[in-house]
């Protein structure tokens, strides 16, 4: 059996340097029925692995023909997510038992998963189904993102200038229930799947493939990652033994790897406040669409520049890409894009943001003092961070500021913020706090330049019309309706503003 381990050398060196190895852990075989019964009975729900900041629930894949492969696939998914993100304080919960309705009309599949993960407050859920068809095995993989995760981690916001009302336009990724992959495995791939899964259950005495197997990781036990060496990790089973397993996250020859990689990437995006989600020919158009949206959510800069526009044009408009790209093999599907009006909404934000940028740039043509900017950055950071940390970060930003030539400063202050401060903050201050600080800095430094900007109402009306048209194709898209309310407010169209708000409220209540 040929294996290839992915090297995270810098990942384990960095936490060692800082004396931090994320207490990533996994817990096994929680009963879905017990969890569901507890929820239906009401009262306080007992959550699992509450010590982990970011948690993912992996459900045994549905296995109606009892092939045993449902558990194997779930195990490989869980291991991949754990190993890909093991430098973070994450917890992987493994649930067993069926998602299919016990009686016709019972809660099932996505709805049932939703109910459990809402109580568990996890960041993401993974589930699916395996079904033997002849001598092949069909595997469907889904990921599901709770509403709270979407709101917190998968969003983009643009503040309109004060002259335009100062309200916020926003976009969140869609869909939140994603069919990631459907693959049909031949006999050889099925055997490889079984071998990998068994291999990933074994604990060895030392980090060596030839070392003695000291046991299997019991399915119902929680284990924690203790330490790592290149290509190996040591785990401690709670209340049990300690041993080594290879840090394998590439199941060579198995297209399942693409789904596992996608799930790990999406989870990592939430846990890190950004990141790259790999695309490939083994994913559904829906998964590709979500990965593309995540690229755009990185920031307004990506959204408005050529790269972002190219991404959006793949999905909407006359240049909609359909079918498989012959060069990459990526399938973009046909017809309406996955996610409904998600790309149309992002395009509306891109057009507005781009126009505001041009307006701001025109205003900056006169240039202004670097010293003023540095001072504003120091003041803003010191309001939110301890003095030592605020001074450290503002010094680093200021040094970057010094290196930018004056003529570039005049035209590119916004780019500077979007590129450099963004990266600096996310390295120094993670997650939600970084996003808040970024917003505060932009507000303090860039906003005064933009606050006087006011877009041509005719232009905004055209954008609103296109957005309203897209809402007919995706009537449940609350972002589109809320954004329409904001735009109509700016246009002074009170009737349509109120209508958009009313419909948005009704849709939100029904979902």
């Amino acid at each position, binding site marked *: 059996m040929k294996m290839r381990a992915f090297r995270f050398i810098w990942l384990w060196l960095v936490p060692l340097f800082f004396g931090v190895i994320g207490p990533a852990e996994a817990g096994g075989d929680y009963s879905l029925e017990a969890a569901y019964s507890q929820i239906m009975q009401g009262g306080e729900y007992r959550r699992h692995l509450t010590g982990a900041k970011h948690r993912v629930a992996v459900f045994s894949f549905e296995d109606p023909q009892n092939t045993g492969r449902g558990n194997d696939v779930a195990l490989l998914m869980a291991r991949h997510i754990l190993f890909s993100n093991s430098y973070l304080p994450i917890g992987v919960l493994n649930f067993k038992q069926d998602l299919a309705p016990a009686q016709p009309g019972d809660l099932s599949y*996505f709805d049932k998963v939703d109910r459990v993960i809402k109580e568990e407050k996890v960041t993401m859920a993974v589930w699916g189904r395996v*079904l033997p068809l002849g001598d092949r095995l069909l595997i469907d993989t889904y990921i599901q993102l709770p509403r709270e995760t979407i709101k917190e981690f998968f969003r983009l916001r643009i503040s309109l200038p004060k002259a335009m009302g100062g309200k916020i336009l926003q976009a969140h990724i869609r869909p939140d229930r994603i069919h990631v992959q459907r693959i049909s495995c031949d006999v050889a791939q099925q055997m490889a799947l079984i071998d990998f899964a068994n291999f990933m259950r074994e604990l060895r005495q030392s980090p060596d493939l030839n070392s003695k197997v000291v046991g299997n990781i019991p399915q119902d036990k929680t284990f924690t990652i203790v330490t790592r060496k290149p290509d190996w990790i040591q785990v401690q089973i709670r209340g049990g033994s300690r041993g080594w397993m290879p840090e394998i996250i590439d199941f060579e020859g198995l297209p399942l790897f693409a789904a596992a990689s996608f799930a790990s990437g999406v989870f990592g995006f939430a846990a890190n406040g950004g990141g790259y989600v790999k695309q490939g020919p083994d994913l559904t158009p829906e998964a590709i669409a979500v990965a593309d949206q995540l690229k755009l959510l990185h920031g307004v800069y990506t959204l408005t520049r050529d790269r972002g526009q190219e991404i959006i044009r793949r999905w909407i408009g006359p240049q909609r890409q359909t079918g498989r790209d012959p060069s990459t093999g990526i399938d973009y599907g046909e017809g309406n894009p996955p996610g409904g009006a998600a790309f149309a909404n992002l395009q509306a934000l891109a057009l507005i943001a781009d126009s505001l940028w041009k307006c701001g740039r025109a205003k900056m043509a006169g240039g202004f003092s670097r010293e003023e900017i540095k001072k504003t950055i120091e003041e803003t950071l010191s309001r939110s961070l301890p003095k030592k940390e605020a001074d450290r970060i503002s010094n680093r930003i200021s040094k970057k500021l010094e290196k930018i030539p004056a003529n570039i400063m005049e035209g590119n202050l916004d780019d500077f913020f979007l590129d450099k401060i963004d990266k600096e903050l996310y390295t120094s201050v993670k997650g939600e706090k970084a996003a808040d600080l970024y917003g505060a800095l932009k507000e303090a430094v860039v906003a005064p330049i933009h606050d006087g900007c006011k877009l041509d109402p005719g232009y905004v009306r055209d954008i609103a019309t296109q957005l309203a048209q897209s809402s007919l194709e995706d*009537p449940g898209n609350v972002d589109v309706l809320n954004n329409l309310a904001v735009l109509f407010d700016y246009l002074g169209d009170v009737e349509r503003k109120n209508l958009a708000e009313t419909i948005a409220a009704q849709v939100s209540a029904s979902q």
Partner: protein
Amino acid sequence: MANARLPSMAKHILPYNLAKVSWCLIGCALWWIFLAVPAAGQTLLNGQVADAVTKAPIPGATVRLVKGDQELGSASSDTNGRFLLSCELPRADQPQNFTLALEHPEFLKISLTVQTVGGKFTQDAYGVQLLPRELLHCRPEKGHCVVIGYFTPPMETAYTDLSRRIADALNFDLLTRLQKFHLQSNLQPVFWACEEAKPRALTHGKYFAQALKADVFIWGNVKKAATGVDIRTVVSDSYGLFELPLSSINQNVDLNDPLAAQLHPETHAAVVAALAAGYEKEERFAQGIEATLLADKLLADAKTKPPELIDEIKKIRGRCQARLPHQQLLPGEGK
């Protein structure tokens, strides 16, 4: 010659028969008067009862008119399924409601409310359909439903439970897709296996769907093939979407293989299109649109794309979009 003979025959026959005929006529007139003209205080209720699936008339059905615990009249249906019930109604100027109860040993009982105004029934005639007794457990009590009926087996092959296996397969294949756009649980269809539902003609599929109050009725047959069997699936809906039921074939399958229960994408699309029609009927236009978009996606994977189905999907979506409140957000669409 015939003409010459007639007068003498007439002399002989006519006086006797004229008398007889006259008495017959008078008797008939009296009979009609007796039956058709109610006695003072009597009201007539007339109707016809038929099989909900085959539409054949049901003779010998018992029909009773009831108010509370009191039976006001009863009748039996004739060979054409027709009944004429005479009853004495309490005098009242206000509209009154009564219960019309029908039963037959081979059919499920039914009761419906009938109304009188000024002592007369508000309808000239009542058409009632009874569900065959064997279909008692053929649908859930309420909500959207897809009923999977009987699949006629080949003579040589024994198999079990194809309806249930198809229902289970549809549970995963379609419920997961419908849940993806957060369709509320009370709008999600139940996939219900009913081996007792055995259509005898192509048109019966639609009648089964309507009689069982299901959005869709699926049935078919199994034939021996070169390897394994060929399974023909036929889809009918309640809403008249398909002039002829939609048919597709799974060829050369092993009946024991789960593949036998997997329906083609165009069949899935037809089921979802019928659900969309159901949502439209309930004025749930957003859900109707979402379902049509799903039907489009399913058809994108289909090898055959029936043009009539594509057309119906577009029409449903167009009608639903026209009724959405979102329409008022477009410029020029004043309130």
